[in-house]
């Protein structure tokens, strides 16, 4: 991978850091959980980037942790549960988070569940299953469920075994219940009002990461096949980055994904989105870390 591209992305990330130690989605915007987590992942793993260390990002995340365990943005709103799942991956190996902080975060996620949806005729799915919602009081969706499932699987010692196993089992069943006919995942339902919905690349890559230890399941295999065939179908930073991580975890060669990612970085630089910049940088430096943060 061209070092100059990596260097440019690292410079963007370095200049985009806020004085409080976190990153916003765009330069000059307030620090938020998601871009700060990706920056932390990136900087912790690729010290040769000259983009600074991850310590400030981890301190920002620690400062935003509520007593109940979840991290919130500086908005005072309900915490974004999906991004708290991502945060578990970002802080997992950090000394700052080795005390009770990580335990409280995982414990809070373990106690959080999507709201029960009414059984209706709109979708052909099992509404009794609950994973994780984006915010409390709403329904379970593929992305937050995948982030939180991956977080729980990555943190075996931090929850009582029976409780952890039950949440993992239900979340896995939810994801497998929502697989699209083509393989892969839409955002939530796989069908609505009698019509099959299309799968999308980012949701599919993320759900497959959460199900990597179930890779022999026919739905996982079908979805991996979908992702492999559609790996370049959504040529944008988020889709390509998640695909790159996912295919690397599954051992599927995908150099063309990283090449496309680098090309986009050079053409429009992800429209200055720092979150996507950090995701791309993480992927383009994968030779350093082999996406270990996402492996079970």
């Amino acid at each position: 991978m061209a070092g100059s591209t990596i260097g440019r992305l690292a410079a963007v990330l370095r200049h985009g850091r806020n004085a409080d130690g976190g990153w916003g989605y765009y330069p000059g915007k307030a620090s938020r959980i998601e871009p700060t987590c990706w920056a932390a992942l990136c900087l912790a793993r690729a010290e040769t980037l000259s983009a600074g260390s991850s310590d400030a990002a981890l301190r920002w995340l620690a400062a935003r942790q509520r007593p109940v365990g979840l991290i919130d943005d500086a908005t005072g709103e309900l915490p974004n549960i999906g991004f708290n799942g991502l945060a578990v991956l970002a802080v997992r190996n950090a000394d700052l988070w080795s005390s009770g902080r990580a335990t409280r975060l995982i414990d809070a996620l373990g106690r959080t569940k999507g709201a029960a949806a009414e059984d209706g005729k709109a979708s052909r799915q099992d509404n009794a299953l609950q994973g994780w919602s984006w915010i409390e009081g709403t329904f379970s969706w593929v992305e937050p469920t995948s982030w939180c499932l991956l977080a729980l699987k990555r943190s075996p010692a931090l929850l009582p075994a029976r409780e952890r196993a039950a949440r993992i089992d239900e979340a896995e069943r939810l994801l497998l219940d929502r697989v699209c006919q083509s393989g892969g995942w839409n955002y939530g339902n796989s069908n609505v009002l009698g019509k099959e919905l299309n799968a999308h690349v980012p949701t599919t890559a993320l759900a497959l990461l959460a199900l990597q230890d179930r890779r022999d399941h026919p739905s996982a295999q079908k979805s991996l096949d979908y992702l492999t065939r559609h790996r370049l179908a959504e040529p944008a930073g988020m889709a390509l980055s998640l695909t790159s991580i996912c295919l690397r975890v599954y051992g599927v060669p995908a150099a063309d994904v990283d090449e496309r990612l680098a090309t986009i970085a050079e053409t429009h630089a992800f429209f200055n989105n720092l979150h996507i910049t950090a995701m791309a940088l993480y992927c383009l430096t994968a030779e350093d870390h082999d996406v270990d943060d996402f492996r079970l």
Partner: protein
Amino acid sequence: MTSTTSGCSDEAPREQRRRGLDISTGVRLSRRAFLVGLPLAAAVAAWQRPPYRKEDFVLPARSPVALLPARGYDADFADVIGRGLAMFDLDVRGKRVFLKPNLVEYEAGTVINTNPHVVAGAVEAFLRAGAREVVVGEGPGHRRDIEYLLTATGLSDVLADLRVRFADLNHDDVARVKLASRFTGLTEMWLPVELVKSDVIVSMPKLKTHHWAGLTASMKNFFGVVPGAVYGWPKNLLHVKGIPNSIVDLNATIRPHFTIVDGVTAMEGDGPIMGRPRALGMLAMGTDLVAVDATCARVIGLDPSKIPYLRTASAFLGNIDRNRIVPVGEPLSRYATQFDVVEHFRSIRLAG
């Protein structure tokens, strides 16, 4: 509307006051919280009171609605929209204009989104009308990957040519805003600073039937301003609180100034994503979004009084009564047709 900002300037409260977006109203209890502990009679009386302050809203005596022809997407939209703007009393000179198109999802060959050429035409028309700045912004409710949507739809190229900035509303800084009506039971929401600090807010929807709301046009389009980074995708809180309630609360609070509806090729059937393209060859415009949406409903053969959010909004936000809507431009009859709708919305068709 009270505005507590997060990582932003403090322009929002001043602008909200100017627009009549109440920033001084004290926090009131939600309807549900208020009812708890009240005797039944008092609860019934409270229930019957509308969840907004009547003095904050004035229904227009008459609402002009313009239907203007545009046969295809190769039309000169700057000209069409410029002529439309001239029909209304909307002074944008020296102001920051915010255009909110409808970007939801991309599927090749479909008409899910507001066409980029219509957006480009609006940018040019508002700049010609003297706007100081035009910003285009959206926070897609489905696909959070805005980079993909912008490039796949071609909107990023169009905006780059015009040197116009795009605001990613899902990931913008946010301001805490008091709701001007409380049909959802919520008292406040977080909204993007880019929206809140604008002088003139323009809805630019694609005209579509909608399998949960019946119709999506000017008013429903504001689901896209709710920041996903705060509320998640697909802005599920709005569904949980009721789609009609949420549409009304957002419009009562934001008080958009104008709308330009892309009805050049609309969508019928299982909208807003899986419906079929249906050529109408028109743009609809106006300052009363309720009246414009009611007119669009009639154009596609739907009864606005049977669309819950339009019926609710007609009590205090705008007009749906034919006698209070003044057609300017082309007559409704030129475009009137019957769109297909999903089965559970058959009853809202004008034909019955």
